[in-house]
């Protein structure tokens, strides 16, 4: 490069700033919000039980499945959720290895959120102090050794679009769960339509997740952002406009959907362990 080097002023020390506003509130809120979610979801994933209600043995109860456990590939031994694609845990699963259906599922939505452009900016600040906040001094040990996303390991964040593909599939699966939540078993084993508070909770969950997923920056790139000529696309740029609208609210939907999915799990879990009952509306 032909540009001559610049003699920059001395960088400020850790947390040094002239800012007089409450700049520390935002990273602390993110730390608590994201940290709390990670702790709760990890705990819930390792429970391996209380993730559904409304099985054949619960006539009249709407069929609710926690989004942390959907899709259920195998049920753990002794549990018959009625949602498992392949039935009971196969015999080849090592007996010494702990099993919870959620552990096979959660890495995908977790990867989608971890590599999300919004979350990256948020947790780099809140968890790694890189920077702690705008115009606030960073921990000095990184200094010129900073690698950002230019080099390994954070260069791997570029995998985000592949997690998006999986996330779109998950929207479909969770929408199916929402549909299933509109049904319950009768005493004779047949199914009937019904609506409960849990049904509504499971319907809202994929809606919030869709608002977040379809507003993703990668999605915006795919539906037109990659082209210099937006009007040349088949829909004349209509999809790009809609995704842009969602993308402008990406942070909002990121948080709503994050808490939404956690609250959905809490609702189902509380129903399943008997803390409260799912209230039938219809």
């Amino acid at each position, binding site marked *: 490069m032909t540009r001559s080097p610049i003699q920059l002023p001395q960088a400020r020390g850790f947390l040094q700033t002239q800012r007089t506003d409450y700049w520390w509130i935002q990273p602390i809120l993110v730390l608590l919000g994201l940290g709390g979610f990670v702790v709760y979801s990890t705990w819930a994933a390792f429970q391996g039980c209380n993730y559904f209600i409304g099985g054949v043995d619960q006539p009249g109860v709407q069929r609710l499945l926690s989004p942390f456990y959907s899709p259920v590939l195998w049920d753990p031994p002794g549990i018959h959720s009625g949602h498992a694609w392949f039935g009971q845990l196969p015999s080849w699963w090592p007996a010494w290895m702990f099993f919870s259906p959620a552990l096979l599922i959660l890495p995908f939505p977790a990867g989608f959120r971890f590599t999300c452009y919004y979350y990256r900016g948020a947790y780099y600040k809140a968890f790694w102090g890189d920077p702690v906040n705008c*115009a606030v001094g960073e921990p000095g040990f990184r200094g010129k050794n900073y690698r950002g996303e230019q080099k390994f390991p954070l260069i791997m964040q570029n995998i985000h*679009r592949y997690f998006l593909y999986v996330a779109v599939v998950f929207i479909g699966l969770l929408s199916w769960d929402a549909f299933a939540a509109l049904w319950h078993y009768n005493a004779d084993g047949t199914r009937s339509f019904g609506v409960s508070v849990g049904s509504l909770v499971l319907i809202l969950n994929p809606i919030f997740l869709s608002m977040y997923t379809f507003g993703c920056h990668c999605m915006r790139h795919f539906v037109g952002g990659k082209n210099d*000529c*937006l009007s040349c696309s088949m829909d004349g740029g209509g999809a790009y406009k809609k995704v842009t609208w969602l993308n402008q609210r990406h942070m909002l939907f990121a948080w709503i959907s994050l808490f939404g999915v956690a609250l959905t799990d809490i609702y189902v879990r509380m129903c399943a362990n008997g803390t409260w009952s799912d209230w039938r509306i219809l």
Partner: protein
Amino acid sequence: MSTPTSQSKPVDESRSVQFRVWRGNKDGGEFVNYQVNVTEGMVLLDCVHRIQAEQAPDLACRWNCKAGKCGSCSAEINGKPSLMCMTRMDTLPKDKVVTVEPMRSFPSIRDLVTDVSWNFRVKKTIKPFKPRKPDNADGSWTMFQQDIDRVQEFRKCIECFLCQDVCHVIRDHQKADEFIGPRFLMYTAALEMHPLDTEDRVGDLKNRDGIGYCNITKCCTKVCPEHIGITDNAIIPMKERVVDQFYDPLTRLFRMFKGK
């Protein structure tokens, strides 16, 4: 019937505000305190001018339009990179000292004036606009407003370099030799997204301009006085194009089959 009286709003009385203004040069400096009477409607640049007029005629400060369009009076006000001419005094906390210092990411020349020439040198290294052949016999092109909207947002930039100042890659990590900063990532995006442009700058963005150093903290977007969506509308779309070209095997395969 009562006599009509003037309905003008009551005017705030002037109040005395204490300023801490950084005085110095590239060898060092210190904050100097000044007391200024502030009246309704004043912006911070007015206060600096009042200090110059009444207390410190040698105080150096760069300014020009006083309308937020020339990008000259960039500074850090209470630690936040801002334009002095667009910072109304009634938006700052009352009864508190106001700190004014130069942009901290550029070499100091004197007092509030910094040397921003590095930015102009960076700009010269970016491949210029290279339009396709004209669409029409009279040498003109046909474009739709929808296709140029994205680029026009970036053309609002007034080159105040507040985004460069706040970017931690330059400010804290001092990567100015490997990273061109948000202003020029956006400038490249404006050229790269232009419907007439035929040049390819994506390789430069990855290999030479250090787009990977941006970790999307959005500080540049927050300080932009023109409210340009620098991160969401310029940098991230360029990161995605870099992924297309260098990191995504499926896209590369697809491109190979399409013969591009």
